[in-house]
């Protein structure tokens, strides 16, 4: 009996010890990679036209970050991401609800949706450009369409996964349609929808930066491509670093939110 009572605490202790040790190892790996890059670039094992030493990237960043143009680029990129994601969310959730309410529509449209998922929608860019002009519009349309699909699909799956008993319960207490959605369906589905929303946000980031990279004339994605063409490796890497930091930050915030939202699922 004693052993059985004791074992969870031993496991818990082990688990508690695992997390800090793991993050230590993780940071060690990151530092090692940076150190290797620094060493290989400094010694010329990696050509400086391919990559500049990380320390130099930092120096470039310190010069670039305070400039007005940097502020404009970041602001442009962030607003494009946010607007695209908002459109994806506002259209994706109702689409998911529709696909759930009308399962036949979900079945019939699935091949189209999945094909849309694999479609390089950026091919429509020239047309959008001609229609909307050289502004953030075409990028927003493309990034929003990339963001929408995972949101809609996860919403459908999440609503399907709600236990039938909850529908029965809502009915038995005569919940109004409004109460049914707000007090039962959405709270029940949110933890399951959230991974899709997170994916939708990441896709908005990826879509925006990728479009900027190849097509735009502003934004952090554009700068990285621009300096490549200028053969300015240091500035190209500085902007790549900005994109990496931005993406990792966004992902961190979303992961933190996800943990909070899913906490009461257990």
């Amino acid at each position, binding site marked *: 009996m004693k052993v059985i009572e004791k074992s969870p605490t031993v496991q818990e202790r082990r688990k508690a010890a695992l997390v800090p040790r793991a993050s230590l190892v993780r940071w060690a790996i990151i530092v090692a990679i940076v150190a290797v890059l620094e060493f290989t670039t400094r010694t010329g094992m990696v050509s400086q036209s391919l990559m500049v030493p990380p320390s130099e990237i930092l120096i470039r960043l310190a010069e670039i970050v305070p400039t007005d143009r940097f502020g404009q680029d970041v602001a442009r990129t962030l607003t494009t991401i946010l607007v695209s994601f908002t459109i994806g969310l506002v259209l994706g959730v109702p689409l998911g609800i529709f696909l759930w309410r009308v399962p036949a529509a979900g079945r019939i449209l699935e091949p189209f949706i999945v094909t849309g998922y694999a479609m390089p929608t950026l091919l429509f860019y020239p047309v959008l450009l001609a229609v909307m002009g050289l502004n953030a519009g075409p990028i927003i349309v493309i990034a929003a369409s990339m963001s929408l699909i995972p949101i809609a699909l996860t919403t459908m799956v999440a609503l399907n996964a709600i236990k039938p008993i909850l529908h029965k319960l809502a009915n038995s*207490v005569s919940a109004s349609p409004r*109460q049914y959605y707000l007090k039962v369906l959405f709270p029940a589905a949110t933890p399951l929808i959230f991974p899709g929303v997170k994916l939708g946000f990441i896709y908005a980031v990826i879509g925006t930066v990728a479009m900027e990279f190849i097509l735009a004339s502003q934004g952090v994605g554009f700068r990285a491509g621009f300096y490549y063409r200028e053969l300015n490796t240091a500035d190209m890497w500085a902007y790549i670093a900005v994109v990496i930091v931005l993406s990792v930050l966004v992902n961190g915030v979303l992961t933190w939110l996800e943990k909070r939202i899913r906490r009461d699922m257990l």
Partner: protein
Amino acid sequence: MSQIFPIDTVGHDSDVVFDNIGMTFGTKTGVTQAVANVSGVIPEGKFVSVIGPSGCGKSTLLDMVGGLLKPTKGTVSINGETVTGPRRDTAMVFQEDSTLHWRTVLDNVAFGLEVKGVPKADRYESARRMIELVGLSGFEDHRPGQLSGGMKQRVAIARALAMEPRVLLMDEPFGALDQQTRQFIGRELLRIWEKTRNRVLFITHDIQEAVYLSDEVWVMSARPSVVKEVVTIDLPRPRPEGTHTLPRFRELEDHLWELVKVEAEKTLGPGARLA
């Protein structure tokens, strides 16, 4: 069609009355006649249990009283009004866990009242009272994920009781619990019911539980089902712990067992046991 039944022939205005109800499901492969014909009355202040082989239509019957399903034949009426949908004076408890995992125990218990539009202070007050009644005091701020199966079912019962239903409908509420827990909660339920004395329709597949709790046990036949026999449980109330050992208790149990065995064999073949 008249909404009110002649008082003398069928029952009182305040009763739950089943008037020749039947339910036939249309499915892709054809039709399933789940409930053939059920008539009966649950009088004021009575606890009625329904037993019968699995798949005979017990849940269907309960859902029809709760207004979740419309009978394809006949009507159910409560207080003289035909049931056309979920009513505010009925409350249901289901076999599966129906707690809302994102709400605390207190908010779960208050859920029915919240939907009814009861102000916050009032519904919390009732909810707290019910939480105490079902023995969950101290767990108000816990979430269902932190509770055992038995405790979750007590939350569901408290939620139903908080709505102060005139008719309480329970579909195998203890079905997923272990024997010890279900006996314990059964006793608790009875203790609470002695105070509220609302009408209860209680579905179970446990004969002992049915005898211990009820004033009447309705035995349903195999599908398409009818009420084969109504057995009056003439054991005195309140029923203390030793009730199970009374000779009369054993007699009633054996009698019900015989009735049910015949039906179970019809559905599953000879030698089969009650599911």
